[in-house]
């Protein structure tokens, strides 16, 4: 399919993303107010001006970044309305529904005020502001799930199914895992076609599943979680690891063992890190490397077929990475973290 118009617009938008030099300049700003002044010379100006009227400082920056991202996704959805490619973007954006639902469930579990939960929502998926507001008004997790069922939202089914188990064990990971499992199964089901676009998107999602499983396994092995309990949160449908392989990795018993078992897979770069940094490396370093791999893998799609929808998906990943980098800079500035440490946390695309 010819996405000439949309892809040209997306390429125009991509050209306005901040390059490494601009991000490095932002890192060197001494405080939040000088960071805001610098950001006013970027495409975030409009969102910043609007957000800073209501919220000063760090909250204002976070609100502006969130609004900018939502506006970007909605703008692209607008271009693709009625086109076949629309559903591929819907697949990408529905991850924000999962993010929003998890945020609401977490907030309701520990009785966080609705206003504070709302600050962390990103209405970029299928859930509109009205539905999110209604969900926020609910007093507890049970009511949130009931409301989803009343509105016939598809995520109600997996949550309802595992709710008795959640009530029994009172472990939020049961609900979160049910959502993840439902989301990835649905996405993989939607891109089963033989077209190049579907194959590329399928591979991207399968890679993401691998990386999520790998990160979970590293954490579970580090924390000595019983493999029988641990395997319940593993996701099916990965590109390299099936459930059988994942179970074997879970039983290896040490982080070093898991990393050694990656020999011959596309994720063997973790072994290089281990061999240079030693066995005492924190799990977060491996996770950062895996996140970086995922982002680079996804952003590479932008440079693929110039008339395919994968250009849009690559751009959205690049945009999201930029937003994450700016959030890291803003939060680190607020917490007086050194530029070197900040630099280590960022991912450049």
């Amino acid at each position, binding site marked *: 399919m*010819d996405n*000439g*118009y*949309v*892809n*040209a*617009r997306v*390429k*125009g*938008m991509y*050209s306005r993303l901040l390059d490494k030099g601009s991000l490095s300049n932002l890192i060197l700003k001494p405080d939040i107010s000088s960071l805001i002044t610098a950001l006013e010379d970027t495409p975030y100006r409009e969102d910043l001006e609007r957000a800073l009227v209501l919220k000063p400082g760090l909250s204002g920056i976070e609100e502006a970044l969130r609004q900018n991202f939502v506006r970007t996704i909605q703008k692209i959805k607008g271009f693709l309305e009625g086109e076949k490619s629309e559903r591929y973007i819907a697949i990408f954006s529905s991850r924000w529904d999962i993010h929003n639902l998890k945020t609401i469930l977490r907030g309701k579990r520990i009785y966080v005020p609705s206003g504070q939960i709302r600050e962390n929502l990103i209405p970029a998926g299928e859930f509109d502001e009205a539905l999110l507001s209604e969900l926020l008004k609910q007093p507890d997790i049970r009511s949130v799930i009931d409301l989803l069922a009343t509105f016939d939202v598809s995520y109600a089914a997996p949550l309802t199914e595992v709710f008795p188990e959640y009530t029994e064990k009172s472990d939020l990971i049961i609900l979160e895992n049910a959502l993840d499992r439902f989301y990835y199964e649905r996405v993989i089901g939607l891109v089963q076609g033989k077209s190049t676009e579907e194959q590329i998107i399928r591979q991207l999602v399968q890679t993401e599943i691998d990386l999520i499983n790998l990160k979970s396994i590293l954490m579970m092995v580090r924390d000595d979680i019983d493999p029988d309990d641990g395997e319940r949160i593993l996701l099916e449908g990965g590109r390299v690891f099936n459930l059988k392989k994942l179970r074997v990795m879970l039983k290896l018993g040490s982080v070093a063992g898991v990393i050694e078992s990656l020999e011959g897979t596309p994720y063997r770069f973790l072994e290089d890190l281990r061999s240079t940094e030693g066995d005492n490396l924190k799990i977060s370093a491996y996770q950062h490397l895996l996140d970086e791999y995922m982002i680079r893998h996804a952003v590479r799609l932008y440079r693929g077929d110039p008339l395919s929808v994968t250009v849009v998906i690559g751009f959205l990943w690049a945009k999201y990475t930029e937003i994450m980098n700016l959030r890291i800079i803003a939060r680190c500035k607020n917490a007086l973290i050194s530029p070197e440490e900040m630099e280590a946390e960022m991912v450049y695309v």
Partner: protein
Amino acid sequence: MTGWEVPIGAAIAFAGGAIATGIAQSKIGAAGAGTVAERPESAGIVIVLEAIPETLVILGFVVAAMIIIMVE
């Protein structure tokens, strides 16, 4: 005296160029509209790019004219 094959040949030469130009301009036009919407400063170059496929139809016209003139 020429038969019907000369004007038909000329028409095919011209039509081929015209159709190819149409296809090329539609693609460039769509992408150009997107480019100008995001970066209005690039309007000049987009107009030049949009005009480039015109060479195809001009070539078709020249070939058609040559067929008619030379055969007669």
